[in-house]
């Protein structure tokens, strides 16, 4: 394939995705979404029959950077198209933030094999850090506060490292579940953190721009969510880049090795605990970043937003997408966040439905909708 042709194929893929995503976010009547829901799998099926999907995958492997950047720009276009739709932007931002947390989970159990059923707790730590730091340290720039929130999340997560390193499989999972519950209870009884009533969070202010105002008219005007959506997109894009680079380096190789066979990898000099700790802290850091932006966007946080069920939802995003595939969490997050919002009927049975989805995936497609491929260190030949 020539370079130009490859690029055209990639751009076509982005354009198609943007149209479909726009449809899902913009349309409101249930029958319209229903039609879309039937058409998308059909479209995917025919594209697959025509080998267009394989063609696209080859193109993406040849030019990973172009793919990544064109997708990010595609989402910017999507945000601009939806700039007057508050609710659609809110959903899109939530998708971007949840996808960021899921990338953290991908590093944790997709790469290093550390289970984490407390993702929402680390998200929550980030959110509460944002609320408190923003209130008490007005002179610190908000960008730095987001950064600190991630760091605090990673450091508090470090408390769990010892018990997690000393346990295996189900037991490690139980420890994280316990931590998630403990976190919520702690928030509820702690008056400094607002107790069950929660806390107000002031909005972001970056580069001299108050995010609470609507999007400036010179740039086309629009909802104040536009700014948050762009921040969330930058966060996700950065997170994705870091995750990919980890995968495509000795770090990812060592993490995979630890996950697949800890005894054998130790016999080849790999320090298992080192990689588990690295993955766990990095993943929680991602969750903390996302939580901070989420808190600033909503302007209000309470313990009730950080339930075990939300952690399970994040885990189901990773399962649905494909464990260990950083690309896969993005469409999966979209499906899991947007569909229940669009179908009010589903909304009530949300958890029930996720349960069914998880069971079906585990039974029929354990490697997810987009299974992870072999490691690709660089564009083209390697791997």
């Amino acid at each position, binding site marked *: 394939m020539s370079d130009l042709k490859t690029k055209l194929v990639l751009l076509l893929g982005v354009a198609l995705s943007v149209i479909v995503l726009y449809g899902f976010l913009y349309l409101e009547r249930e029958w319209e979404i229903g039609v879309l829901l039937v058409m998308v799998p059909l479209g995917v099926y025919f594209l697959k029959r025509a080998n267009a999907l394989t063609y696209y995958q080859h193109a993406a492997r040849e030019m990973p950077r172009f793919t990544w950047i064109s997708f990010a720009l595609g989402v910017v276009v999507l945000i601009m198209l939806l700039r007057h739709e508050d609710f659609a932007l809110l959903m899109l931002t939530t998708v971007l933030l949840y996808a960021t947390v899921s990338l953290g989970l991908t590093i944790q159990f997709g790469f290093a094999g550390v289970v984490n059923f407390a993702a929402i707790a680390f998200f929550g730590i980030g959110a509460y850090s944002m609320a408190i730091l923003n209130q008490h340290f007005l002179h610190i720039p908000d960008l730095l506060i987001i950064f600190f929130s991630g760091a605090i999340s990673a450091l508090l997560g470090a408390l769990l490292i010892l018990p997690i390193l000393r346990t295996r499989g189900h037991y490690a999972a139980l420890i994280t579940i316990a931590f998630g519950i403990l976190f919520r209870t702690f928030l509820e009884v702690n008056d400094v953190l607002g107790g069950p009533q929660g806390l107000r969070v002031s909005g972001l202010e970056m580069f001299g721009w108050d995010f609470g105002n609507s999007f400036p008219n010179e740039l086309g005007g629009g909802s104040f969510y536009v700014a948050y959506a762009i921040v969330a997109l930058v966060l996700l894009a950065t997170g994705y880049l*870091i995750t990919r*680079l*980890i995968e495509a*380096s*000795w*770090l990812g*190789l*060592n993490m*995979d*090795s630890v996950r*697949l*066979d800890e*005894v*054998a*990898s*130790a*016999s*080849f*000099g*790999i*320090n298992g605990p080192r990689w588990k700790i690295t993955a766990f802290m990095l993943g929680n850091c991602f969750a903390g970043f996302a939580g901070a932006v989420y808190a600033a966007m909503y302007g209000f946080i309470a313990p009730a937003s950080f339930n075990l069920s939300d952690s399970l939802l994040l885990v189901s995003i990773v399962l649905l997408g494909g464990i260990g595939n950083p690309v896969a969490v993005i469409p999966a997050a979209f499906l899991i966040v947007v569909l229940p919002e669009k179908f009010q009927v589903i909304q009530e049975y949300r958890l029930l439905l996720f349960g069914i989805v998880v069971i079906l995936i585990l039974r029929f497609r354990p490697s997810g909708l987009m299974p992870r491929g*072999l*490691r690709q*260190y*660089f564009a083209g030949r*390697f*791997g």
Partner: protein
Amino acid sequence: MRQTVLQTKELTVSFGGLKALNGLDFQLCEGEFLGLIGPNGSGKTTFFNALTGIYRPAAGSVLLHGNDITGAPPNKIYAYGITRTFQRLRLATSLSVLDNLIIGNQRNLNLGLWYNIFNRKYFKQRLQEQIQIAEELLSRFSRDLAVHLFKPVSSLSMIDRRRVEVCRALISEPKILLLDEPSAGMTPDETRALMDELQHWREQYPALSIILIEHEMELINKVSDRCVVLNYGEKIAEGRYSEVSKEPGVRAAYLGED
């Protein structure tokens, strides 16, 4: 007399009341090819696991070049230059052949966060070096296999997987190689081919010492310089295979004679 590389003194490993290894005195010389034989459950694999730090010895000591390394963790043992293969293959089957080999060369990888994530140009050079090393090593064992460098291990046949495992243990140019029944699941011809390659390797690296656990007595007879026979965790005989195989104690352990 050649120099002693590895020595154990009164090495004991116990699981509850059972002594899987009982006061084993053992030594390995530089460049030696030693056969470790004995009936099932006699403690051969346990011995490997105790040497490589997977099991902690209950008593006794392990000396490498005279330095006490008893109870050192597996990653330290690897850093000292001892590598192994496993009786039941322990490759990362969902990863590529290349990835598996690079895992074996861990000692020569730079694991810094900055270097791995941001210094990609430099990383690419290191990767190309590793690919070259892996390709050369694989093609010594099998030209056909070297073509499959970028394929997942799960797509390989049994013999090729064995080869990958042996290569993974050799790629870091160890001082001591521990082979745990490499012939399991292979035809005699395939085993012979593998052993011939190992002999070539030894010619190039004469200082490499090998301990081989094996049930094929003919193979032991052919390749080993010396044999150690274990039974119930104790050493019952030691010497050249032709001598050892005649000893009544050994015959009794294998054939059940009184």
